[in-house]
């Protein structure tokens, strides 16, 4: 069970830290994509590509991807845990949220890696 | 800590039928077996339970049978303080506390008991403190004390003005520490079962589920509190009916000194909710309609801090002489308790609770307005007759707290001595009961008695029929008591009330409209009313017979104290025809009776 590997205290610490990071990174992302760079330009192919390949912005997107998903899926886990308290349910919720987090991060990371290193077509 | 499971044995009537026992109605009675059974969960009951658990090192199983939820007993409403000699270096002394108590009792207290009580108190205060009690503190971190009526030193230990409440929570919380204490909450104990004058157990009704059970135990403690709900204008909660006293009375134990009922000077009009004596201890004054501080005419030295009987009589005298106010809605007459001189800061610090109560129930802010008060039924000095150890005449059965009469309160209790008494005799009886239960075996059960009780409740009342509303009987009883057994009494009034009560006893109220099993408070209430009638009869007869005025018992027709004939305790024994009275001497050690001046 999840709480054997990690105390709830640590999980909540992660929840708080990822929450604060998300607020910061999402703000940067939104401001950059709509205000600093005009929206029309921001979504153009060349602009997006240059952002992905920008060392700071690219890494930022990857970090944002991780923190927001960890935060989001853990939030979902909390809601689900409050719905039912059977051992089976808790175990299932823990496992499913961990898998969902890993899979979604993996898929998002694939986009970032391909955008940075893949050949343009 | 040893984990012990409760053993329940089921009694089958088939086996008893062969022995020729009486049976009917229902086939089985559940038996809940433990070592010590405590009836009542107020300060005395909880203190006794903790002591029994401690004294036996948690080896004994202790059951608390309580008709309310354990932390809701009426001890929560005690407000002002708990008396103890904590600071002899500042001028207090054991002798002074003993003398104040004896003088307060109008010399009817047993002085050996008072001495034991006073000596035991300081460690009780510290004990509660060590269990978490939030006593108010002095700047140096030690426990604070304040003035209370009838004392010659400010020795009322306090925790704001919610002393009883905090004591209850502390004791309840501490009791949860012991796995050997098991709570049977909302179980209404109905009778004491004995065999050859030895305690065998109590029968009880589970209010929540409607089940009837026999609590078999080696030792028992009755700690069911007072009987203030014999009056409608009372500081007591609705649960304060004389169930425990009635149980003991039915089991053949006499009730002692029941004529002495304390009327607290300051019950808020019209609800009767208590305005603590600490209000006067902190500097509150009593004013009549003319704005006069009338206590200077009745107790020139102590003024508002004379003992309660003195202040109550003063208030009623003022009212009778036309210097009181009248509450139009309820018709009650009252005087003013003026706390405006105390100051906002001190009130918020030390009288927060009554400020809240007065604001909520009366819309009065005590910082700036006087409170309407009149004497209100507050305490029963009498109770189950016990010796200095709290032991009753049945072997293995003790009684403690307001339900018992040790007697340290005599004819008039001093404020702050009641919670104190509960603590001291809670501890004493808890320890003795534990010791007794360790040494003795379970007695044989007289099943006949158990089955008769079961039949009385279920066949007699739950399935019984009748035409009179038991609640009406209760209200009439309270009206009689309010009118005729109040601060001043007369022979005629008492006799009239006694006749009325005896009529009511014959009336046809022993039945239930509510036939359901779950949470049938109707059934419980009928049982309560039955007890109230019998105990009221004892109060009235004892009062009628005592032809003198002593402490709280003030007879218009016999206005003086009569030590020659009446320096003795009244004992009332139950017979089919009604109470039979007897008397026993007062224990006097150092302090010879003298006239009281405050």
């Amino acid at each position, binding site marked *: 069970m999840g709480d054997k590997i990690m105390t709830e205290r640590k999980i909540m610490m992660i929840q708080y830290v990822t929450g604060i990071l998300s607020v910061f990174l999402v703000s940067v992302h939104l401001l950059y994509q709509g205000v600093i760079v005009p929206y029309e330009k921001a979504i153009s192919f060349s602009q997006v590509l240059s952002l992905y390949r920008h060392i700071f912005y690219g890494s930022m997107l990857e970090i944002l991807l991780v923190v927001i998903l960890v935060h989001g899926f853990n*939030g979902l886990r909390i809601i689900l845990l409050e719905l039912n308290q059977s051992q089976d349910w808790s175990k299932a919720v823990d496992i499913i949220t961990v898998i969902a987090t890993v899979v979604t991060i993996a*898929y998002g990371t694939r986009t970032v890696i391909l955008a940075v290193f893949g050949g343009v077509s | 800590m040893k984990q012990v499971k409760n053993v329940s044995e089921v009694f089958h009537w088939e086996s008893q039928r062969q022995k020729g026992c009486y049976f009917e109605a229902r086939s089985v009675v559940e038996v809940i077996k433990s070592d010590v059974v405590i009836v009542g969960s107020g300060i005395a009951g909880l203190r006794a339970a903790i002591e029994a658990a401690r004294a036996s090192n948690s080896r004994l199983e202790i059951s608390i049978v309580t008709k309310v939820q354990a932390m809701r007993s009426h001890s929560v409403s005690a407000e002002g303080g708990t008396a103890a000699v904590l600071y002899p270096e500042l001028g207090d002394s054991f002798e002074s506390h003993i003398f104040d108590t004896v003088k307060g009792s109008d010399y009817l207290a047993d002085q050996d008991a008072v001495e034991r009580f006073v000596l035991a108190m300081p460690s009780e205060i510290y004990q509660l403190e060590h269990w978490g009690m939030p006593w108010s503190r002095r700047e140096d971190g030690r426990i604070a004390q304040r003035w209370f009526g009838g004392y010659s030193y400010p020795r009322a230990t306090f925790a704001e003005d919610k002393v009883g409440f905090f004591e209850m929570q502390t004791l309840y919380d501490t009791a949860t520490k012991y796995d050997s204490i098991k709570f049977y909450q909302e179980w209404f104990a109905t009778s004491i079962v004995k065999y050859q004058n030895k305690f065998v157990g109590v029968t009880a009704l589970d209010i929540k589920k409607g089940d009837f059970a026999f609590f078999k135990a080696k030792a028992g403690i009755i700690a069911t509190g007072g009987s203030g709900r014999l009056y409608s204008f009372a500081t007591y909660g609705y649960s304060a009916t004389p169930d425990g006293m009635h149980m003991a009375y039915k089991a053949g134990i006499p009730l002692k000194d029941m004529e002495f009922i304390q009327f607290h000077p300051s019950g808020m009009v019209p609800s009767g909710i208590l305005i603590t004596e600490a209000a006067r201890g902190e500097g509150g004054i009593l004013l009549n309609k003319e704005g006069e501080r009338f206590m200077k005419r009745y107790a020139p030295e102590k003024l508002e801090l004379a003992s309660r009987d003195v202040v109550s009589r003063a208030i009623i005298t003022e009212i009778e002489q036309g210097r009181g106010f009248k509450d139009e809605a309820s018709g009650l007459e009252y005087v003013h308790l003026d706390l405006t001189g105390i100051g906002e800061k001190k009130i918020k610090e030390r009288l927060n609770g009554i400020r809240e109560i007065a604001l909520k129930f009366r819309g009065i802010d005590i910082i700036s307005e006087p409170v309407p008060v009149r004497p209100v039924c507050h305490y029963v000095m009498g109770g189950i007759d016990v010796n200095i150890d709290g032991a009753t005449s049945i072997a293995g059965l003790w009684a403690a707290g307001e339900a018992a009469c040790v007697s340290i309160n005599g004819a008039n209790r001093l404020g702050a001595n009641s919670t104190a008494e509960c603590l001291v005799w809670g501890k004493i009886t808890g320890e003795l009961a534990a010791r007794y239960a360790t040494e003795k075996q379970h007695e044989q059960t007289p099943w006949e008695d158990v089955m008769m009780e079961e039949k009385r409740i279920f066949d007699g009342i739950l399935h019984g029929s009748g035409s009179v509303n038991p609640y009406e009987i209760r209200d009439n009883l309270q009206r009689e008591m309010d009118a005729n057994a109040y601060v001043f009494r007369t022979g005629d009034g008492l006799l009239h009330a006694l006749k009325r009560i005896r009529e009511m006893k014959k009336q046809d109220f022993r039945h239930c409209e509510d036939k359901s099993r779950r949470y049938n408070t109707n059934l419980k209430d009928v049982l309560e009313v039955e007890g109230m009638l019998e105990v009221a009869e004892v109060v009235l007869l004892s009062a009628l017979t005592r032809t003198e005025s002593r402490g709280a018992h003030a007879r218009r027709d016999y206005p003086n104290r009569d030590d020659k004939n009446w320096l003795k305790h009244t004992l009332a024994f139950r017979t089919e025809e009604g109470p039979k009275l007897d008397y026993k001497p007062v224990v006097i050690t150092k302090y010879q009776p003298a006239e009281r001046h405050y």
Partner: protein
Amino acid sequence: MEKGRERNRRGIRGWFDPTVPNNLERWAYFFQRLTGLGILAYVIGHIGDTSFFVGGPFGTGPNQSSWSFDLSITENVVGHLILIFVVLIVTFHGINGIRLILAELGIMVGKPSKIEYPYRPSSLRSVQRHIIWVAIVLAVLAAIWAGSILFG
């Protein structure tokens, strides 16, 4: 004593129970949950949608035509309305979230004190409650701003 009705637990209805008076935090609690779920759903969608930049699930690198196809689906009135709504809930969730983190660590909730009747709980009249209003106002402003950018 196990039948559902007898159990009498409030259940999920209690999560958005408006009957408690003087309790703005309860509404904030409810919307924090709701917006959180909404944002999670959007983020998952956004990850899917941005993967078209590299040609979708089976792509191999930045792909201009795939990206144009994606934009053709998302860049329209409905898509923009969704974006504005996302800005609204993200702003609320973020600011309210910071309030909760601080409050849950005992900051901005007041401190224990000698209380007086009529009782007014310090945790419900401390700075934290004002921040709920801040979150609401800023969320609306951010949404208006986003609208002006997307439709302006």
